[in-house]
């Protein structure tokens, strides 16, 4: 598959809209510049998510005498809103993006600041703003997008001002690091370890996409590793984070405390086997044993009720999504490439981290599985991200 990336863009891509073989002209026009596999994989993940969220909440809702489909409907509603946001974002042009970039970045910073002022603590992280009537937003979800777009604009503008096309200057990189450090620092303080990791991954993707010299990337990775070691040794992590980390390493250490979630998710996944127990037939899921199963542990529903087959489909869909994102990056100009690689790194790492913690591979960090987990904030931010990828693609096709 890596050959696809090294091919010249557009010309050989079978789905490139510049090809005239399409039979349906109106559709072709409407989807002109759209990467359909990207849309379909995101939509498929969202619909699978709807079913899994439904399965995860049905039992509890029934026992509580509530509508067993309540979460299903809300998830579908979120998905629809995300679709609208995607279409809107895909219409963004280069000029608007230049304006939007700094605006989104600043808005996400304000959102994170608001968390400190009026935020609520949910599951140990002070990361939420409760709007009332059951609605709450998690600004760190939007911060990921704001950071990627903001950085893209920063690098492009600086390069354009200098009028050169080479690797970003050292001063650009240092400025970018400041821009990265502000939201990351705030997320660290919330403290939201999961979002910190994903923000870091997205920022790293941006740097790679911007084509900074290898010594920067390697140096930053080394620095991150060193800081992480120091943070653990110096006790900078909150006790609940350390507990999650140690229980990830020793799942039987504290079976009713932090390790409970991991153990229960593990049982659900093990129940699944090759093909799963079938929809609504998972005892672990129906019994409600896995806490947060409709959000952070939604993957364990797929694991129990659809088995390894279901898990493979989900992982494959994420692989397709990231592949198409990288294809778009390959075609795009500097700004588009930065956005695309940033988003791909964000999605890839968030999916890996979430599925990994379900599988007992990574520590529990409270990150949703993109499109699949129940939750509005992340779904909307991800819809916007897919839309931006489409915009990047449309702009690069148009300029090709």
């Amino acid at each position, binding site marked *: *598959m*890596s050959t696809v*990336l*090294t091919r010249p863009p557009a010309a050989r891509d079978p789905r490139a809209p510049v090809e005239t073989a399409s039979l349906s002209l109106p559709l072709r026009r409407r989807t002109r510049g759209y990467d359909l596999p990207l849309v379909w994989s995101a939509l498929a993940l969202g619909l699978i998510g709807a079913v899994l969220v439904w399965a995860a909440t049905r039992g*509890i809702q029934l*026992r509580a005498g509530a509508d067993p489909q309540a979460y299903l409907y809300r998830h579908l509603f979120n998905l629809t809103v995300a679709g609208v946001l995607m279409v809107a974002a895909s219409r963004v042009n280069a000029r608007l993006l230049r304006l939007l970039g700094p605006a989104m970045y600043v808005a996400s910073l304000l959102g994170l600041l608001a968390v400190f002022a009026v935020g609520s603590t949910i599951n140990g992280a002070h990361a939420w703003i409760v709007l009332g009537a059951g609605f709450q937003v998690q600004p760190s979800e939007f911060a990921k997008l704001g950071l990627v777009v903001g950085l893209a604009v920063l690098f492009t503008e600086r390069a354009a001002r200098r009028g050169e*096309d*080479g*690797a970003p200057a050292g001063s650009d990189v240092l400025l970018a690091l400041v821009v990265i450090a502000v939201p990351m620092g705030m997320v660290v303080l919330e403290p939201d370890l999961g979002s910190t990791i994903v923000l870091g991954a997205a920022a790293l*993707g941006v740097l*790679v*996409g*911007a*084509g900074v*010299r290898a010594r920067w990337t390697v140096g930053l990775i080394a620095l991150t590793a060193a800081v992480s070691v120091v943070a653990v040794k110096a006790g900078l992590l909150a*006790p*609940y984070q350390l507990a999650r980390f140690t229980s990830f390493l020793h799942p039987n250490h504290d079976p009713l*405390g932090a390790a409970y979630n991991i*153990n229960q998710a*593990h*049982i659900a*996944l*093990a129940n*699944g*086997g*090759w093909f799963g127990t079938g929809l609504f037939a998972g*005892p*672990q899921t129906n*019994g*409600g*044993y896995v*806490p947060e199963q409709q959000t952070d542990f939604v993957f364990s529903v797929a*694991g129990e009720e659809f*088995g*390894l087959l279901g*898990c*493979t489909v989900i*992982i*494959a869909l*994420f*692989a397709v999504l*990231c*592949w198409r994102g*990288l294809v778009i*990056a*390959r075609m795009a100009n*500097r700004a588009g*490439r930065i956005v695309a*690689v940033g988003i*791909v*790194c964000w999605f*890839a*790492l968030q*999916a*890996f981290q979430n*599925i*990994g913690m379900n*599988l*007992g*591979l990574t520590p529990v960090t409270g990150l949703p599985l993109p499109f699949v987990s129940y939750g509005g904030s992340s779904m909307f931010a991800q819809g916007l991200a897919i839309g931006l990828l489409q915009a990047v693609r449309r702009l690069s096709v148009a300029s090709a």
Partner: protein
Amino acid sequence: MPDRRRLRPGPPRLPIVFTLVASLFATLLVRALWVQVLDPHKPVQTAGLTHDGRIVLPAPRGLIVDASGRPLVQNTSAQQITIDREQLLAQPDHGTAVLDRLAPLLGTTPAQLAREITPCSPKVAAPCWTGEPYAPVPVATQASTQAVLAIAEHREDFPAVALRTVTLPEYPYGTLAAHVLGYTGQVNAADLKADPALADADQIGRTGLEAYYDSVLRGTDGAQVLPLSPQGYATGPGYTVAPVQGDTLVTSIDLPLQQIAEQSLAQEIAAKRKAGKPATSGAVVIMDPQSGRILVIASYPTYDPSLFVGGISNADYAKLTAPTADDPLLSRAIAGQYAPGSTFKLITSSSLLMHNEINTTSRYPCPGSVSIDGRVKTNYDSEVLGNINLENALGYSCDTFFYVPAANEYYADQRRIAAGQKPDEWLQQTASLFGVGTAPGLDVPAGEQASGSYADREIRQARWDAMKSQYCAQAKSGYPDVADPGQRAYLTLLASQNCTDGWRYHAGDNADMAIGQGETTMSPLQLAIAYSAMVNGGRILEPRLGWAVVDGAGRVVRTIDPVVRRTLPVPQADLNFIANSLNFGRGWAVSGAFAYIGSPYQSQIGGKTGTAEVVGKLDTSWLATWGPIYHDGSGNVRAKFVMVGMITQAGTGATAAGPMLKRIWDAIMGVAGAPVLPGIAPPTKLPDVRPQVAVSR
């Protein structure tokens, strides 16, 4: 390539990103394959799909009743206010309004209430709810009537708040017999660890009979069993197992006699205090010398056991344990040990007669003072009585009479030691046979019973070995923190003697022991046991307060009987002689008769005074009495009751303990009105204990 890369960086890096991303997803696939299919030790759910939760319904404790079935500890019902946390959180405002309304009724704040009902966890610090998360949390146990009415009348304002009736111990006679009844407390973490059958909501006996018979009195807790979801929420009403109240403990305590004794004790102490004596504490023990049952144990100062119900407040506990409070929690009768003074002469006389060191007919000197190893020891007030026999030595309580044989016994032992033999130490041996140095084995916790003490060569040596360095250090430093110079000089001299000669047991020590001084101590209960042996044929009894355990249907589950520890080797004739020597019918010839001259029952009782000297304090006043006297088939002296009285720092035995016990004897003998115990004898028949009325909840 290198040139191109420098000119157009970016695209060539994408394969690296792709490879990284692809490897992440490949890792997930491999891990999923292992977890879901290949792992040979897949975990399985062991919790079962549903399980039950238990809300403990504590059993009411059993009653403690007196020898006629009158309750000394009973149960009262109190209204407990509870909050159901699940119901509270289900309110639209998560119960904020309810807590706001409830808090002022309970004299607390909504925030405090919210903390109290939050289940404890690593993230939630005390105060928090230590019980099961689904169980209603008690927020007030003895709620005011006002609060209970406000909640009961406005149920709609207090959703999730419930009233439930709980039973709590109640003491209908207040402080009466507080030390022997003991107090109860709420079960704590240490209790739960020691006995897993206990529940948080249980009351547990902490001291006295409540503690000793806790397993009998506790009953069996009931439970409300709730089906629970895996999240721990109750999913239905479940079912209820009713608690079973604990059995009733019938004691041999006689309520009216106990009341009279406590009153007389308090009256005497008040009178002595009025006369300018400290009279810090006192005790009365009355026992049936034939059966070994205890009828009265009174101790002064005392406390109110109801302070401990539902947990004693810090302020109340501080008050009880303050240095100025004179330790009201300590039972002087059982846990206190004091020099018995001349009351010990029963044991000395028994020992001397048994080993033929003196006889009942010969006369021996009773000078004003004797010199033993150069130390002058005097009679009380240096009284000189010339040559007298044992009868008068006991009656007039001559000390010097006993010094001489005790010193001679000591010298004989020293000669045996010099000859390489073991010393006889008959006096110590006899004291030990009478129970001195061993806890009496009453049915209260072992830690509440004093053993008493005496000195001998071995004990001296062992203590000196352990304490030598401390004595020498004290002798050297000279007690700098003792203010009184006289006291300081005395203590320093004592420490200096102990440092060099502390191991040595002197002839004077043996003489001191003969008159119940020196290191000889006994509790009032031990003295009562010793005098009981004198009038029951020499039987040393393990006395009992408990008489029977009766179940809820009024059936006797078991009777509790005193145990005969040993029968003294003292000849019965000698015991008769001692008892007769001390009969109050001998009038002025018996020191203890002082307060009883002219009373209608004077010759029906006997008694021995004790006036024990305590360094730096006023004398401890003792009187051990027995009566009404009768004779068994062989003409041996017997008595229905043995009564021991003691007041510290109050003066002579005849002038303090004497009048105190006389008021009680007047009541027993029926001097004014009917005798308090029918037939002037301890009860012998168990009372009918009516079946207990079920406590509704």
